[in-house]
């Protein structure tokens, strides 16, 4: 494994039609397998959406949801720690901007690790190296999984 590999976090992405009850169906499946959701977001397009979640047991979640007929994919994301006070997001966002790191999509949560920014970027290896060299803290995948 590359040195940056430990910072790659397996996010599950679930294709979902945009209609009532779909999120509940996904959440129920995860509950049945005692899978904990650490963070999630919904990206919506016209008539459909993609539910993205960080879970503690991604492989199990993949198997469960696929078994139920869902269309599921794994995606590598990275997690950057933020200062949990005003300006925390700005610090990280400015750093990414200055380093020309383009964000495909992102979502955040505030938990026991503090505030965390989840990022999907074009080139994760390069982003991990740049972010680390600039002094920001990346969370290892073991924190979640």
């Amino acid at each position, binding site marked *: 494994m590359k040195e940056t590999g430990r910072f790659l976090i397996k996010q599950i*992405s679930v*294709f979902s*039609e945009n209609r009532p009850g779909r999120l509940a169906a996904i959440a129920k499946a995860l509950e049945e397998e005692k899978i904990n959701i650490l963070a999630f977001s919904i990206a919506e*397009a016209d008539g459909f959406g*993609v539910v993205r979640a960080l879970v503690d047991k991604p492989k199990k979640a993949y198997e469960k949801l696929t078994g139920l*007929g869902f269309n599921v994919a794994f995606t590598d994301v990275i997690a950057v720690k933020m200062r949990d006070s005003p300006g925390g997001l700005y610090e990280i966002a400015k750093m990414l901007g200055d380093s020309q790191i383009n964000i495909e999509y992102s979502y955040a949560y505030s938990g026991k690790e503090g505030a965390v920014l989840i990022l999907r970027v074009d080139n994760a290896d390069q982003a991990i190296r740049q972010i680390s060299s600039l002094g920001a803290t990346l969370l290892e995948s073991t924190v979640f999984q």
Partner: protein
Amino acid sequence: MMFWDPRMEEMPPEELQRLQYRLLKTLVYRLYSFSPFYHDRMKESGVHPDDVRTLADIRKLPFMYKRDLRDNYPDKIFVAGQDDLVRYHVSSGTTGKPTVVGYTRNDLDNWTASLARGLVSCGLGRGDVLQVSYGYGLFTGGLGLHYGAERVGATVLPTSVGNTERQIELMQDLHTTAIACTPSYLLHMGEVAEKMGVSIRDDTDLRMGILGAEPWSDTMKSRIEDWLGIRAYDIYGTSELSGPMFCECSEQKGFHVWGDLAFIEILDPDTGESLGPGEKGELVVTMLQKEALPMIRYRIGDITSFEDGVCACGRTHPRVMRISGRVDDMLIIRGINVFPSQIEYALMTIPEVGQHFQIVVDRKGALDDMLVRVEVSRESFSDKITDLMAIRKTVEHKLRNTLNVAVNVELVEPGSLPRFEGKAKRVIDRRQL
């Protein structure tokens, strides 16, 4: 002028039947001798031209289906060589392959003459401005009406389809008195006109619509007539017959099918039994004079009924009522024939989506709106929204190119569309005609 061809249009029924018999007999001999397709068909059904001794003997002849045109794509069934053809038209087939029709000079003349009779019978002629808002091109509607109307001396305004605001401006500026289009498009025009502050009833000279290419009801006819202040006449045809061919007369009680050009039967679609006047069944047409692409007992698939007896207008030719349905699953979307099987074939070429689909047809305003639901395959799902949007666009493009009509596509979860063991029911039609 009440009649275009009074001798023919008022021909006594017995004389007309004798003429039909002579034409049928000639047709059968001609095809038995010169058409390998019909020769084989007749042999297979054990019928020889000598067996046709009365007009009723037409029932001994084998049927012809749309699939025969597909199987003989593009022109294997034609009786005329390419050098005798003066035009092609192309319409949708039931699969990926379209249906090609060809015309000799005589075929075009008969088509135009048929329309000339029909247009005069509903009161169109010199002094009228006919706006032809059917599509021009491979579709038969535009060019068919165009030449028919020119023949009777009307002024043709060949607007073709689309750009509705401009159509309404031209309708006002050039004093259009008649329009040929689908009934739903005319309603759409009425709505667009109102948004522009134009009342078709009060601010234009429009007095009649020659409407067809899709099923419509008495309710829709009344709505058009009452709202727009015009008379609405039904027109009927398919590319296999030549194109739009037969039109209602001023009585508005069904379109006259000219007996010297076509012989009609109404059959029970299941048993093939011949039905009488007023009974609903499948329309079967024999084109008595077509040269390039003859049609004997062609099963178009439309459900309707007919009336015989002399019409109040004086014409002796039978009348066929507005089409009330189909025997198959063919849909008509904005005047264009769409077969679910075409969609199936198109989807097979796109690996990103599965083979299952569902069609939902509705009216948005006055216009048809078709939605096709497809499942995203597991292999092609990535978490990127842009990838999914690209898949949807690919499917929309492919379907648009195959069907010649705009389609909205909805991506759904794999396994979520209904599966069928027997006959698939893939169409949800919510239109109120």
